[in-house]
């Protein structure tokens, strides 16, 4: 695989019941590609958090997953409200989620810190009123 294998998913922002499904699909595909369990878990957990964020904070978006032998990249792009203060959003426990989201089991303010912890590199670009793109890279355990 010197050429990347790429997958694209559209994340529906109006349907919470399907939130997380793209990450489940990615997990299955990475299993078929025979990556090790630890790498698969890191990629799928981080993508899952990002996917849920796009649904609960940004009304959906797209997920692109590019897979090489030694590296996996996940790009999550939305046209939501943007993040006013990235440093604040990155703090454990910071969340703007409302009670209805909390009652679904999200809104602990742990998603972005988890994504940072599980990925080897994470970049956020965001513009207020325009949207947010989160790019995460993972080096494959060898």
């Amino acid at each position, binding site marked *: 695989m010197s050429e990347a294998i790429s997958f694209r998913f559209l994340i529906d922002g109006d349907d919470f*019941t399907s939130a997380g499904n793209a990450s489940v699909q990615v997990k299955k595909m990475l299993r078929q590609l025979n990556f090790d369990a630890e790498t698969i878990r890191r990629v*799928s957990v981080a993508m899952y958090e990002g996917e849920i964020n796009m649904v609960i904070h940004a009304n959906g978006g797209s997920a692109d997953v590019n897979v090489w032998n030694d590296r996996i990249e996940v790009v999550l792009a939305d046209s939501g409200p943007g993040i006013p203060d990235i440093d604040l959003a990155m703090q454990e426990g910071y969340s703007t989620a409302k009670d209805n989201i*909390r009652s679904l*089991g*999200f809104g602990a303010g742990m998603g972005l810190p988890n994504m940072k*912890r599980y990925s080897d590199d994470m970049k956020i670009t965001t513009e207020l009123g325009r949207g947010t793109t989160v790019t995460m890279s993972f080096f494959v355990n060898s």
Partner: protein
Amino acid sequence: MKISKIIELLDATVLCGEDKIENEVHSACGSDMMSDVLAYVKEQAVLLTGLVNLQVVRTAEMMDMKCIVIVRGKKPGNEVVELCRESGIVMLSTEERMYVACGRLYENGLRGGGVKENE
């Protein structure tokens, strides 16, 4: 601990995964916040929760968990049980509350397992 032992200790009903109840599990965690599960859990095989939505199943699947225990006798919808079956995860339901359910499993030797990953 075998999953069948959990069923006995919690007087639980098996909602799916009947064929896997003789499998062994070594640690558990209890939470209603999925991001906490995703943050602090390392090798826990059992998730006790009071939530019954599809994300509970997806969260357990992301963490390679083997068994979900729904506490307080809540009833998940058919599609939740079906997704759980497809994911190969055992789903149990108990009338016990979270605190009591966790305590009873802990007391019988099912511990908390790994802690937060610090990489």
